[in-house]
């Protein structure tokens, strides 16, 4: 039978509006096109185009040697990436869901993060592990988790999470082109939202945060889907005459201490907002960095608004687990009243 060739679904990098799903797809297309050593693989990423369709059309365009399905085994997928990297390839594996990264933690922590160190630099590990992450889509158990603190704690890894389509494009280009392993956390809840902004080359160094809304009364620090949430909260605050700055951290390792400090100098108050549970979450790390580097600029203790120390709950309870607008506003009020 003759199969009709169709042009794969893709985002046109020059178009003015994209979803994050399209932007990441476009970034992978750019990366596959620019470097023949780049390989995209994982469960269902080939014919299906990934469970979130992020790899849609890539196999049709680049062939099943460069974009391929693997058996269902996360540790094997990451182990495969290590061997491919040792043979000169630039692997971009996808683990289907955050909760299924746990079976691969041994390979990620014991092998990916350490092979460069163990080999004294002889074996580079230019692996970018794409991980659909966080909650907000009422998914089943293990399909919504926040692993940033776990991975940020591991020497040898770098960790980032984009908050909007254009930045997702830039961050992925930067992650894959880097010669170190990067865990790239894709906020599932933001896959489908479109926003304007051409897809352009990275303009900030690895580790740089960015101020996505300026304000003078307090800084909200967030990443991933929480950035959009904090922008909404900032609109509420503005109705009350409170001007909140929103800092999109982008990189969770390394953390942009200079960017944090600069924002605290402007506002004197910090509220960290993350989905992950409170205890030993990155909010604690950020609070520590702020008090170490900007103690005298602080007008109030750093506040943390996070998920609770419970497993991510099932769908109907998710809105009560994730930081809502009122909890962030209350934390802001505490800093204003201190």
């Amino acid at each position: 039978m003759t199969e009709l060739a169709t042009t794969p679904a893709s985002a046109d990098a020059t178009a003015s509006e994209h979803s994050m799903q399209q932007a990441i797809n476009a970034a992978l297309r750019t990366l596959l096109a620019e470097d023949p050593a780049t390989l995209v693989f994982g469960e269902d990423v080939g014919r299906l185009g990934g469970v979130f369709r992020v790899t849609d059309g890539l196999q049709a365009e680049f062939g099943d040697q460069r974009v391929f399905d693997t058996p269902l085994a996360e540790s094997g997928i990451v182990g495969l990436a290590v061997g491919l990297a040792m043979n000169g390839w630039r692997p971009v594996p996808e683990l289907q869901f955050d909760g299924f990264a746990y079976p691969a933690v041994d390979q990620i922590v014991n092998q990916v993060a350490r092979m460069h160190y163990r080999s004294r630099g002889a074996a580079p590990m230019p692996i970018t592990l794409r991980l659909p992450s966080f909650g907000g889509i009422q998914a089943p158990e293990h399909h919504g988790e926040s692993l940033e603190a776990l991975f940020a704690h591991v020497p040898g890894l770098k960790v980032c999470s984009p908050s909007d389509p254009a930045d997702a494009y830039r961050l992925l280009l930067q992650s894959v082109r880097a010669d170190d392993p990067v865990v790239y956390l894709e906020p599932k809840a933001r896959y489908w939202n479109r926003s304007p902004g051409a897809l352009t080359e990275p303009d900030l160094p690895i580790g740089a945060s960015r101020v996505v809304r300026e304000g003078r009364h307090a800084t909200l620090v967030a990443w991933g889907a929480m950035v959009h949430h904090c922008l909404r909260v900032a609109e509420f605050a503005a109705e009350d005459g409170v001007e909140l700055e929103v800092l999109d951290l982008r990189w969770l390792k390394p953390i942009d201490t200079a960017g944090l400090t600069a924002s605290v100098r402007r506002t004197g108050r910090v509220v960290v907002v993350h989905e992950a549970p409170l205890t030993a979450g990155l909010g604690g790390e950020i609070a520590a960095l702020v008090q170490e580097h900007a103690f005298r600029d602080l007008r109030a203790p750093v506040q943390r608004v996070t998920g609770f120390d419970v497993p991510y709950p099932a769908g109907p309870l998710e809105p009560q687990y994730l930081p809502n607008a009122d909890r962030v506003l209350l934390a802001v009020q505490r800093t204003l009243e201190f």
Partner: protein
Amino acid sequence: MHAEKTAQGIETGAGTLAPETLRTLYRHMLAARMLDGEAIALQRQGVFPAYVSLHGQEAAQVGSAAALDPEHDFAFPTYRELAVAVTMGVDLVGYLASHRALWHGGLYDPIASRFSCLNAVVGGPVPHAVGWALGERLRGGPGCAIAYFGDGASSEGDVHEAMNFAGVFGSPVVFFCQNNQWALSVPNSAQVAGGSIAARGAGYGMPGVTVDGQDVVAVFEATRAALERARAGGGPTVIEALTYRVNPHSTSDDAGRYRDPAEELRWRERDPLLLMRRALERDKHANADFFTDVEDRVRAECVRVRDEVSVLPPPDGSDMFAHVYREPTEELRRQHRVWRDEVEQ
């Protein structure tokens, strides 16, 4: 009580290998045996904090490694593959530096040596071999990968995932299991369901070969056949070499707590070096002069390696920071400065 698994055959066969090759295999086995002895001594002298002996497994390691194409193939060891390192010409001072605890992965270049870093996560490197082999095939290169693991590691999920991946992808890889009968203190009977690791190949769509791991020629032939098959596009093979860990698991282990010394004695009867020496003499491939000469040369080399590894300087503390990233983070640079200011003397 477990049933001890012993490979059949009393003497090693000479097969079709040239006498010169047979003598080389013997020399590698002897070098590994003598260096192993030196390493055990170094541990007792306080130079190595610990050491894992490969005594008894020389034929399995040398026979498999000698079958590799040194230009194109790549080996993924665990931590007991000294004889593989000897055969592949790895810098042995750099290799033993790992056991001197100077650097976990050793101080040799794993990429240039085509012998990956020592790895203490047993089973962990096995998927690396599959990835390397897949990468080689994608590139159209001629190389094959060989993954070393033991009967204990065969229980690890990674080994099963790796075999399944290799079966699915048809990757040019040899899964080389040294079944030395004991996973630390646990015998095969309590470790390997079904009793055969080679038999697992069938479930992953690849041939499984059991070979007498004390017979260096048999191991060489089996590995060469698997590599030829892989190189020709025939996909992976699992080889189970039946051998024996004559010594305890490590210099910190007490095998007397879990196994009968008589078993060790029985296996010493099947010492791979003894078998090979007898075969060389039987077939008149080597005379007394050869054995005297090769022992002298190997001993001199072992002494050189022993002496050099003993006096290697400890690594600079800066090295802790040097290799974490290719592009170090600002925070790590800061911590490096803290180390310089507050720790370095």
